[in-house]
C-alpha cells in the first residue's frame, strides 16, 4: 500500500517553500531563497521518484493490473449528504507519471533559475511563486475529488498569472497575465458548470465514484441524466462538453488558445515549466482522468475532443512557421503538440488495444515535457545571451553557445519525430492510434508533423547558423551561462534523447493492463520521411542567409499574411470584448444604473421636494389667502354634508 504521508509531503514541500519565501523571503532569505526553494523541490522530486518506483515495481501491480488507490480523504467542505469536497490523494499510473514529470521539470527549472534569475530584485518572490505553482500542480495531479481538482486548477491559474506578470512594470506583461487569467477563467466557467452537471447527475464529487456511477449505462443515474435534455443534448453530454471546455482553455486549444503566445511575457524558465511542460497539459490530464466518462458515456464529446485537438495542432503549426519571436514559435509549437495529445485521446476508445490512443497521449505528454522544457530552457539561454527574443537578432550562435546548441538540436530532433529520439516513439504511437480510428485526423496529424519538423528547424537554423556575424554587440556577450543553467539542459537533453525507450505501454494504459506498443517500421516511413523533408526545407531556406524565405512568403501571399497575423483570432476576440461586451453590455449597464435606476431614486427625492415646494406656497403668510381657503373649504364641506353625504 502506498504511504499517504510520503505522498502528501510531495506537494506540501513546495507549499512550505511558498509560505516561507512569500512571507519572509524579502527580509530573511533575499540571497538564499533560490537554494531553499531548490532544496525543498529536490526533496519532493526524490519522494516522487521513490513513489513512482514503489508504485510501478512494488505494490502497484496486482494480478497484472495496475490498481488505483485513493488515500486520505479529508472532508474539506460538505455540501449535502454524499456530496462534499474531500481532499484526497489518487494514486494510479497517470498521476504517478505526472508526479514525476512535474517535480522533475520543476526541479530543473528551479536549478536553471538560480542562474537565469540571478540578481533579480524580487528573487525570493519568484521562488515563492514557483513553489506555489508546483504545489498547485501537484495537488491537481493528485486530486481525488473533482472539486479538489478545480481548486488546484484555479491555483495553477493564479500562479501562472503571477508568474507571467512577474515583471509587473512592463505593460505588455500586465496585459498578458490579465489575458491569460481571463481566458482560462472563461474556460473554467465551463469546467465549473460541467462539474455541477456531472456531480448532480452522479450524486458525488469523488472522481472514482463519479466514473463508476456514470459509466454503467444501465444504472438509474445515467438513465435519468440522459432523459434530462437541454437544447437537444443530454445532461451528461453537456456536462462532459463543459468540462472539456475547461480543459481546452487551460491547454490552449483552439479557439481558447490566444493567451498562450502572450503568456511568453513571463520569465523564460516559467514558460518552460508552466506554459510548456506542466500546466498546459492539465487539460489533457483532465480529459484523461475522466476518460471513462468521455469514452463510454459520451463518445460524441470525445469526438469533439479529437477534432478540436487536430484542428489546434495544424493551426498552431501553420502559425508557428511564420512567427519570428523565438518564444512565440515555441508557444505555438506547444499548442500544436498538445493538440496531438488531445486528438490522441479523442481517437482512443476504452480498454485494450483500442485504448492505445490513451497510452500514446500520456506517452507524448511525458516526452513532450522533456523536450519542450529543454527547448524553452535552451531558448532562455539564448535570450540570456542575446538579450532579445527576435530570431532576426540571432544567428551563428553555435560557436558561442556549444552546449545549448547540442541540447537544442536534440530537442529539435525529438520534437520532429526523428528516431531514436523521444518524440519519435510517442508521436508514432499517436499516429498509429489515429490511423486505426480516424483517417482524416491521421492525415492532418501527418501534415502537422511535417510542419513541426520544418518550423523547429527553421528556428534552429535561424538561431545557430544563418548569419555568421550576429548583429548583437560581441563585447557585451559573456559566457554561456553558469553551471546552474547548463546542468538542467544536459539532464533534459539526456531525457529528450532517451525517454522514448521507456516501455510506456507497460505502465500506463486506460484499464491498467500492460499494452505492448507495436512500432511498425513500414508505418514509420511516412512520418519520418515527412519530418526529414521538413528539415531539408528548413535547411535550404534558413541555413545560410538568403532571400529564399522572403520569396516563398511573398509567393504564398494572403495565406502567409493571415498566418503571420495568427489568422486574426486575436482581433476577433478584441472586437468581441471591446465592441460587444464593453460597449454594448457593460457601458449601457453602468449608464442604466447611474441614470435609470439611480435616476428613479433621485426622481422620488426631487418629486417629493417639488411637491413640498408647491405646498410651501400655500403657506404664504397672507392672512386673506388663508381666509379664502378656509371659507372655500367650509362652503364645500357644508355643501357636501348637506347635499351629498346626507
Amino acid at each position, binding site marked *: 500500500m502506498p504511504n499517504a504521508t510520503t505522498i502528501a509531503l510531495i506537494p506540501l514541500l513546495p507549499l512550505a517553500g511558498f509560505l516561507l519565501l512569500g512571507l519572509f523571503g524579502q527580509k530573511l532569505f533575499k540571497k538564499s531563497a533560490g537554494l531553499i526553494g531548490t532544496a525543498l523541490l529536490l526533496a519532493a522530486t526524490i519522494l516522487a521518484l521513490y513513489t513512482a518506483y514503489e508504485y510501478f515495481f512494488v505494490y502497484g501491480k496486482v494480478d497484472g493490473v495496475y490498481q488505483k488507490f485513493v488515500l486520505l480523504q479529508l472532508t474539506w467542505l460538505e455540501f449535502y449528504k454524499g456530496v462534499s469536497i474531500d481532499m484526497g490523494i489518487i494514486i494510479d499510473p497517470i498521476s504517478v507519471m505526472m508526479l514525476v514529470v512535474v517535480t522533475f521539470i520543476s526541479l530543473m527549472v528551479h536549478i536553471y533559475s538560480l542562474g537565469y534569475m540571478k540578481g533579480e530584485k524580487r528573487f525570493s518572490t519568484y521562488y515563492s511563486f514557483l513553489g506555489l505553482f508546483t504545489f498547485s500542480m501537484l495537488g491537481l495531479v493528485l486530486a481525488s475529488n473533482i472539486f479538489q481538482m478545480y481548486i488546484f486548477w484555479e491555483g495553477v491559474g493564479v500562479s501562472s498569472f503571477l508568474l507571467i506578470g512577474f515583471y509587473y512594470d512592463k505593460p505588455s506583461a500586465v496585459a498578458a497575465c490579465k489575458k491569460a487569467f481571463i481566458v482560462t477563467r472563461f474556460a473554467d466557467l465551463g469546467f465549473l458548470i460541467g462539474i455541477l452537471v456531472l456531480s448532480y447527475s452522479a450524486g458525488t464529487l469523488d472522481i472514482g465514484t463519479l466514473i463508476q456511477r456514470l459509466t454503467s449505462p444501465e444504472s438509474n443515474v445515467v438513465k435519468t441524466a440522459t432523459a434530462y435534455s437541454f437544447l437537444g443534448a443530454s445532461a451528461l453530454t453537456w456536462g462532459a462538453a463543459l468540462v472539456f471546455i475547461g480543459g481546452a482553455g487551460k491547454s490552449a486549444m483552439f479557439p481558447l488558445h490566444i493567451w498562450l503566445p502572450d503568456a511568453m511575457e513571463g520569465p523564460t524558465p516559467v514558460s518552460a515549466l508552466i506554459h510548456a511542460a506542466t500546466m498546459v497539459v492539465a487539460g489533457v490530464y483532465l480529459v484523461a482522468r475522466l476518460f471513462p466518462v468521455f469514452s463510454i458515456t459520451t463518445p460524441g464529446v470525445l469526438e469533439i475532443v479529437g477534432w478540436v485537438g487536430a484542428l489546434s495542432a495544424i493551426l498552431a503549426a501553420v502559425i508557428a512557421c511564420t512567427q519570428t519571436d523565438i518564444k512565440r514559435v515555441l508557444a505555438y509549437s506547444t499548442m500544436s503538440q498538445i493538440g496531438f495529445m488531445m486528438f490522441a485521446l479523442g481517437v482512443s476508445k476504452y480498454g485494450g488495444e483500442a485504448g492505445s490512443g490513451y497510452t500514446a497521449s500520456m506517452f507524448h505528454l511525458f516526452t513532450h515535457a522533456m523536450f519542450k522544457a529543454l527547448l524553452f530552457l535552451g531558448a532562455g539561454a539564448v535570450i540570456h545571451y542575446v538579450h532579445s527574443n527576435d530570431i532576426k537578432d540571432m544567428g551563428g550562435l553555435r560557436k558561442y553557445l556549444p552546449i545549448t546548441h547540442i541540447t537544442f538540436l536534440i530537442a529539435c530532433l525529438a520534437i520532429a519525430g526523428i528516431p531514436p529520439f523521444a518524440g519519435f516513439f510517442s508521436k508514432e504511437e499517436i499516429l498509429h492510434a489515429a490511423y486505426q480510428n480516424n483517417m482524416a485526423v491521421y492525415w492532418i496529424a501527418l501534415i502537422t508533423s511535417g510542419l513541426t519538423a520544418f518550423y523547429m528547424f527553421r528556428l534552429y537554423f535561424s538561431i545557430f547558423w544563418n548569419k555568421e556575424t550576429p548583429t548583437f554587440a560581441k563585447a557585451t556577450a559573456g559566457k554561456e551561462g553558469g553551471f546552474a543553467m547548463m546542468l538542467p539542459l544536459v539532464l533534459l537533453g539526456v531525457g529528450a534523447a532517451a525517454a522514448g525507450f521507456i516501455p510506456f505501454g507497460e505502465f500506463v494504459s486506460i484499464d491498467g493492463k500492460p499494452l505492448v506498443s507495436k512500432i511498425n517500421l513500414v508505418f514509420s516511413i511516412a512520418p519520418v520521411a515527412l519530418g526529414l523533408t521538413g528539415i531539408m526545407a528548413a535547411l535550404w531556406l534558413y541555413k545560410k542567409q538568403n532571400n529564399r524565405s522572403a520569396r516563398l512568403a511573398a509567393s504564398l501571399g494572403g495565406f502567409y499574411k493571415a498566418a503571420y497575423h495568427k489568422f486574426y483570432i486575436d482581433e476577433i476576440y478584441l472586437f468581441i470584448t471591446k465592441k460587444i461586451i464593453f460597449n454594448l453590455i*457593460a457601458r449601457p449597464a453602468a449608464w442604466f444604473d447611474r441614470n435609470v435606476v439611480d435616476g428613479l431614486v433621485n426622481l422620488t427625492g426631487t418629486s417629493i421636494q417639488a411637491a413640498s415646494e408647491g405646498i410651501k406656497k400655500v403657506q404664504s403668510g397672507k392672512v386673506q389667502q388663508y381666509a379664502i381657503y378656509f371659507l372655500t373649504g367650509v362652503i364645500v364641506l357644508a355643501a357636501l354634508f348637506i347635499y351629498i353625504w346626507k
Partner: protein
Amino acid sequence: MNLLLLIGLPVLTALAVLLSRNKQQVKWISLLGSLAQLGLAIALLFAFRQERAANNTAQMLFEQHYKLFAALNINFHIGVDGISVAMVLLTSFVVMAGVLVSWNIEKMTKEFYFLLILLALGAYGFFISLDLFILFFFLEISVIPKYLLIGIWGSGRKEYSANKLALMLMGGSALILVGILGLYFTAGHSFDLLSLSKTNIPGNIQHIIFPFLFIGFGVFTALFPFHTWVPDGHSSAPTAGSMFLAGISMKLGGYGCLRVATYLLPEGAKEYANIIIILSAIAILYGAFATMMQKDLKYINAYSSVSHVGFSLLGIGMLTQTAITGALLQMVSHGLMTALFFAVIGMIYDRTHTRMVAEMGGLMKVMPFISTVFFIVGLCSLGLPGLSGFVAEITVFMGSWQVDDTFHRIATIIAAMSIVVTAVYILRAIGQTVMGPVKNENFLQLKDATWNEKWAAIILVAGIVAIGVAPGWLNNLLRPAAQVIMDRISGK
C-alpha cells in the same frame, strides 16, 4: 457565556470614549474595547462549539429573557445560533480593523470613535436579538451613526450621499416596521422570534407581509433595484465608514432577509422565491458589468458588492439548505473581503490622494505591502480557491444546482457567468493600479503601510484565509442553523 456582555462591552467602550480627555486616550480605549470584543466573539465561538459538542441541541443557546413592556408583550430576549455566532465574529473582526485604519482621523476624533462603537453595538445587538422589537431597535441604532459618519467625515458629495443613504435605509426600516407589526397582529400579539416561528400564519397573510420584510431588509443588503445608495454611500464615506457599511451593515439586511422574512414566513418565501432569484441573478451579472465601467476604486468595490451580495440573495431564493448555507458563507466572506477592500482603498487614497484607477500605476514598487493585500483581496473577490470568496460561491452554486428545473439552472448559470466578469474588472483594477509602470513621479516618495494599517489588513486577511483554507468549521457552524430554517420552509 453571558450574551449581555456582547452588548455591554461596546456600551462601556462608548462611555469610556466619551469620558476620555484626549485623542490618544480615545484611540487606545477604542482599540482595547474592540480587541476585547474580538476576544469575546472568539470566546463565544468556542463556548458555542463546546455546548454543541456536549449535545446541547436547543435551537438557540445562551438565551436570556427579560420583560421589557409586558402590556404589549415586548421582551428583551437574546440568544445565539450558529448564524449569529458567525455574524458576531464577522462584526468583531471588521470593527477591530475599522478602529485600526481610522487611527489618523484628526477631525473630531472622539465623536468619530463614539459613532463607530455605537454602530458596532447596533450590529451586535441586532445579531443576537430574538425579539423583533429589540431587533428593530438595534437595527435603527446602526443606521443613525452611518448618516453622521458620512455627513461629517466623508468626502466628495457627502451631504447628498448621507441623505440618500439615510433616507433609503429609513425607507427600508419603515417597510420592516410595517412587516413586523403585521406579524405582531396576525400571530397572536408576539414579537418573539422563536414563538413566531412555531405559529402557523395563514398563507395569504404571509404573501402580504413577506414583501414588506424582504424588501425592507433587502434595501439594507442592496437588493437589485434598491441598491443605489451603495455606490454613493461608499464613495463618500470615510474608510472605516465604508468598511462598516459594506462589512456589517449590508449583512444586517441579509441576516434579516433570512432570519426574519424567510424563516418566519416560509409560504411567502416560496411564493416570491422566483422573483428573488430573478432579481439577484440580475444583480449579480448586471452589477458585475456595471463595475467594469467604473473608474473610481470605491465605485468599483461598491458595484462589485452589489454583485457579490446578489449571491447571498440568490442562495436565499433557492431555498435549499446548501444554498442557504452558501448565502451565509457569502455574507461572512463578503463582509471580511469588502471591509479589507475598502481598507486598502483608504490606505491608497491616503497616500496618493486619488481613487481614480487611471491616475495610478506601479504601486507594487512603492508600497509592496498594501499592493500585496490589494492582490489578495482582489483574488478573493474573483473567487480564488484558498480564499473565502470561493467557498461561499461554490456552496451557493452547488445548492442552487440542486433545484432541478430549467429556470433555476439558467439562473445559476447566469450567476456563475459573473466569475468571468468579476475576473475581468478585478484584473483591470489590479493591472492598472498595482501593476504597470509608475505613472506619477510623486508616488515614488510614498511610504508603505504603517503598523496600524498592517494589523488591520492582517486581521482581515487572516479571516479570509481561515475561511478559505479550512471552511469546515464555519460550514459546520452554519449548516445546522440553515437546516432549522429549511425545516420550517419544508414544513417539517
